[in-house]
């Protein structure tokens, strides 16, 4: 009897906690999203009127920021994949006994606070940094071009900050590939590119899927990079949700935006996983 109950007893405290502080808040957020201000009430006082129009208003008003969030997150994810794949491949197959050392080096930048590193990028790419004067004097960018407060800086910051989330799962799945399968492909007269396309890449797909999800999801909801490296013209949906909460005290709109963001991410992720064909991952 005890044996049957053991797993449930082990789950109980953790799931009770997650139910109270993860599921309940989400339900509560759904309730908040259809509220409207109380007539004659103070700021921040709302009543339930089941106004689903909140969603339409919130979306129409902020469609630009929504568009930006998904565009920036997509570009950053693709860039992170392009940068990480060769890196993960090199660590898995070409680093010999230094494999663990290189893995530590991928995570090591994480130990410096991510905000400090983002601020560091702001200063490196800023007017007083060494990048802008160099690029100007060599004529790569014009005298009036700046790098900070641009979409470029925001996307670069996001790519940088979420890079290990891409590299680690990629490494995990590439490292599992038996090098003999690559040799076999070569023995069957496949050239390097064909081997990569027909053997390496398909075998590493679980890592590609996990990495893209782990990068895309936080990137789409991020507002720190946009706040530090961007300008009002690069505001993302995260920035809007934050200011709705703290500056405008407009909880229903913030809740509706949060829900729309989560729904959009879930839909995209589902389509993506279906297309990538690795459903067992989730």
């Amino acid at each position, binding site marked *: 009897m005890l044996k049957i109950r*053991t*797993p*449930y007893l*082990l789950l109980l*405290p*953790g*799931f009770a*906690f*997650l139910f109270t*502080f*993860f599921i309940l*808040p*989400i339900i*509560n*957020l759904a309730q908040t999203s259809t509220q409207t201000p109380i007539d004659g009430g103070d700021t921040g006082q709302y009543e339930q009127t089941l106004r689903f129009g909140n969603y339409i208003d919130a979306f129409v008003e902020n469609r630009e920021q929504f568009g930006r969030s998904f565009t920036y997150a997509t570009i950053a994810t693709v860039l992170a994949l392009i*940068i990480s794949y*060769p*890196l993960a491949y*090199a660590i898995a197959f*070409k680093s010999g006994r230094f494999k663990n050392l*290189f893995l530590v*080096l*991928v*995570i*090591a*930048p*994480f*130990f*410096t*606070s*991510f*905000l*400090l*590193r983002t601020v*560091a*990028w702001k*200063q490196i790419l800023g007017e*007083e940094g060494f990048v802008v004067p160099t690029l100007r004097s060599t004529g790569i960018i014009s005298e009036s071009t700046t790098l900070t407060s641009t979409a470029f800086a925001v996307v670069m910051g996001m790519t*940088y900050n979420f890079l290990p989330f891409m590299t680690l799962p990629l490494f995990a799945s590439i490292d599992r590939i038996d090098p003999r399968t690559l040799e076999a492909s070569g023995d069957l007269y496949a*050239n390097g590119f064909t081997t990569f396309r027909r053997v390496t890449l398909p075998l590493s797909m679980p890592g590609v899927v996990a990495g893209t*999800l782990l990068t895309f*999801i*936080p990137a789409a*909801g*991020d*507002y*720190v990079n946009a706040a*530090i490296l961007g300008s009002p013209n690069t505001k993302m949906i995260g920035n809007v*949700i*934050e200011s709705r*909460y703290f500056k405008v005290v407009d*909880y229903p709109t*913030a*809740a509706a935006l*949060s*829900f729309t*963001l*989560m729904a959009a*991410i879930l839909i995209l*992720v589902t389509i993506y996983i279906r297309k990538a064909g690795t459903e067992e991952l989730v």
Partner: protein
Amino acid sequence: MSKKIVDASIPTLPLSAKFSRWFGRNLIRVYMFIAFTYLFIPVAYTFAFSFNDSGKSNLIWKGFTLGNWQNPCGAPEICAALGNSIKIGLLATIFSTILGTMIAFAIGRHKFKGRSTSNLLIFLPMATPEIVLGASLLSLFLVFKINPGFWPTVIAHVVFCISFVVVTVKARIASLDPRLEQAAMDLYANEFQTFRRVTLPLVGPGIAGAALLAFSLSFDDFIITNFNSGTVTTFPKFVYTAAARGIPAQANVIGSAMFFLALTIVIIGQIVSNKRKIS
């Protein structure tokens, strides 16, 4: 005649194969070097500017000083913020490691009804954007008239740390050889003794790794903290607020010190686990 035989046994490589060999041997090294340089540029910058004799705003290089390292608490409120981050991090680590390890054992070691639902419930917090997690918890606290602050932040951190602990410990449990436990049982150890003397020591490194991960996630978190901490300042919050007017060099000192401390812990952990493998 003999020359021909040599030729046949070692066929000359076609040019494309030669190139791809060279590519594999050298270009990938060059690439690794560039990639790691990219990863470490801001770390190096942060470290270098921790020695800047900068005064209040650490934007332009003004000269070398050790003063910031000798007086890391020199900037107002920075050490209070650091203290809060460490306290919140430790509490969140303890709670999430205990709860997460229990869940990991349940899912990793038992077959039961609702196992796949449990897996889903663990996956969901990881698939939820931080801003939604933070905002939804704040809404709940507001409904119950709980003011955001120290404990709400700890709770929020436990929520997002649990899933990472479960995933890490579960992976360790999955790699465990079940025959070791069977052997212990064969030697008349009861279930509790087996767990304490065999299972726990074997899963231990996984739990330690999960705890380290939880601490670093909690210590570095900004978005969820910003929503639930109210007037309590943590280190990332301090940096974010100060970023607008230029962060003090002491923040660079603390960031660099954390970097070297964590690196030391990881390297010692690697050496210990390597030694264990050898013996």
